[in-house]
């Protein structure tokens, strides 16, 4: 029997580090379904949850897995699942239920090449827009992209903390390369790990309204079985949780679930940079591609090209302000991602036509070589 926080220094894959991050964050339920290249997260959780009095279940499909994750969250337990493209598509239905019912949980997508079954064993970053808009309706989502096994450990903790604080499913958009890559991972002492739990209700239970927002726009959340007689529905509902088929209620509810994110962007958005302060060209990238971009920026500097890297850690909500500010001072942008221009379009939107924008991307299956980024930097600027 091992503790929840496996303090020590390890050589670990991203998938295993993700599972360890989840346990350190307090996750005690995993509902999953096998899929390459995310299976190792489920396998790790299957044994590790037994060490910490948690529960693992392999469901009959990803639809059931996502439903069980939401059910477990309303049972009062921090819960998660992990999947890849095809499973992510199946989860979209209940991710929407999670958004509508403001249910904290974490969904990991270890991205592989698509569309459809695609390239199961090869990485890609081509589900980024699905992460944003994959479930129907208008909503806000939080998605984060780690660049190493060490970072996935920490970001999984951050993802749980944000999901608990803002009451919504938080997505970790990693990829096959990070998931299967082994690197040094340092797991700190348990006391150094900050964990956040959902806001809890106070006062009279019979007067409690499960969707009446608190000061930061987020409502306190009880669990089933605590005597609140909750009614939770995926229909448009009022603050009591009761369905109301009216334009006013729709406006109020959708405003609440979007505003709680829009009002707290500074708390949610995380970015990182490398040689960006004096850069004339901003390379924008995330996940594994941010690492190859970093090598490219270092190489470009040697060649006298003043490039710098803006690494997006939070992808959604999109770091619009950061891009807008850069657009006022750089000569151009280069987006680097393993798809044919998903985040690229967001960069383009936020740059507002002020400077030229280039994409280094390909449809998936391998990393983007730093040389192709350097080549573009040499040719375009």
């Amino acid at each position, binding site marked *: 029997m091992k503790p929840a926080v496996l303090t020590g220094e390890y050589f670990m894959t991203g998938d295993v580090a993700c599972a360890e991050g989840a346990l350190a964050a307090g996750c005690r339920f995993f*509902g999953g379904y096998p899929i390459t290249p995310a299976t190792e997260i489920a396998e790790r959780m299957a044994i590790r949850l037994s060490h910490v*009095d948690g529960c*693992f*279940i392999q469901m009959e499909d990803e639809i059931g897995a996502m439903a*069980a994750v939401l059910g477990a969250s309303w049972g009062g337990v921090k819960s998660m699942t992990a999947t890849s493209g095809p499973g992510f598509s199946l989860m979209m239905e*209940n991710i929407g239920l999670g958004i509508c019912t403001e249910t904290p949980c974490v969904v990991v997508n270890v991205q592989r090449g698509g569309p459809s079954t695609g390239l199961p064993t090869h990485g890609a970053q081509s589900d980024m827009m699905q992460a944003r808009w994959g479930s129907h309706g208008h909503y806000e989502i939080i998605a984060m992209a780690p660049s190493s096994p060490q970072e996935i450990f920490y970001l999984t903790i951050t993802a749980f903390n944000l999901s608990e604080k803002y009451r919504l499913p938080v997505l970790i958009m990693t990829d096959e390369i990070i998931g299967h890559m082994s690197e040094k991972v340092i797991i700190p002492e348990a006391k150094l790990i900050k964990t956040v739990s959902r806001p809890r209700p106070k006062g009279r239970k019979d007067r409690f309204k499960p969707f009446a927002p608190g000061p930061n726009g987020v409502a306190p959340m009880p*669990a*089933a*079985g605590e005597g609140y007689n909750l009614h939770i529905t995926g229909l448009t509902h009022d603050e009591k949780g009761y369905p109301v088929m009216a334009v006013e209620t729709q406006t109020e509810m959708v405003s609440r679930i979007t505003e709680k994110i829009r009002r707290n962007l500074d708390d949610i958005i995380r970015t990182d940079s490398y040689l960006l302060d004096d850069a004339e060209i901003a390379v924008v990238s995330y996940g594994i591609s941010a690492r190859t971009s970093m090598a490219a920026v270092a190489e470009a500097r040697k060649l006298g090209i003043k490039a710098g890297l803006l690494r997006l850690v939070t992808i959604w909500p999109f770091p619009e302000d950061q891009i807008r500010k850069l657009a006022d001072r750089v000569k151009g942008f280069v987006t680097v991602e393993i798809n044919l221009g998903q985040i690229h379009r967001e960069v383009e939107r936020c740059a507002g036509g002020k400077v030229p924008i280039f994409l280094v991307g390909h449809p998936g299956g391998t990393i983007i070589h730093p040389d192709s980024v350097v080549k573009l930097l040499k040719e375009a600027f």
Partner: protein
Amino acid sequence: MQENSTPSKKQPGHPLDDLIRTDRIPHIWCPGCGIGTVFSACLAALKGSGINLRKTVMVSGIGCSGRAAGYVKLDSFHTTHGRAIPFATGLKLANPELNIAVFSGDGDLFAIGGNHFIHAARRNMDMTVICVNNLNYGMTGGQVAATTPYLAKSTTTPMGNPETPFNLPLMAYACGATYVARWTMLHTRDLTECITEAICKKGFSFIEALSPCPVNYGRRNKQKPLDMLKLYQEKTIIKNDADPSTLDIDFEKGIILGKFVDLDRPTFTEQYDKIYRPSRLQENVPELNS
């Protein structure tokens, strides 16, 4: 009931009012619909069973029957179409103290949600599933379902249903349910008794409640509102322990009602604790004795 959204002070309360969100009445169910009767049998069973209602949760999917979760004054979850059972699975695993009643319709539980039903029964997940079977998709206006009789008319089988319907008790039994019964909403007392028994029983329990849908099913199949009730009275045979393979719904031959399966095998949680969390099992021993 439909005209009075708030009962007048002179009117005595209904004995099940404490389990109803009266502020949500009137309900959406049509005149002649049987869901209300099954719902009330379910509430009477929950109340009569003596279980801790504070620790009792109703989970529904989508459809007319799925609206039940919105009327019951318990912790209640109205989930996505077909997903009540896996949602309930997560609730139960997160907090094994919860009593779980899944209340939903035939379309929800056996077409879009069929896979989840099969696996929850196989795992012997500790919950009671009550299926209101009205032989069609009522909420969307009367389309063919996985339970619609052969040749019956619906908006999507305008010349008659070419498909064979499910025998639901047989399916439940074959998948591993430890308690299986079928009644009609006309057999209210038997239905209530069976739901009570199922709620008190550990493991995966399944109750099929036949219920009329005069507006969408009856209208297209030359059945006036009372005709279906007459069939329930005249064309049913009560036969407890009947062989599940003989339970096809055939109004010509007669429909067999009763309790068909009542057996014991370990639940998912019991097996999981035994293999993965033996410490939890030991901790539970004193509680079981007290």
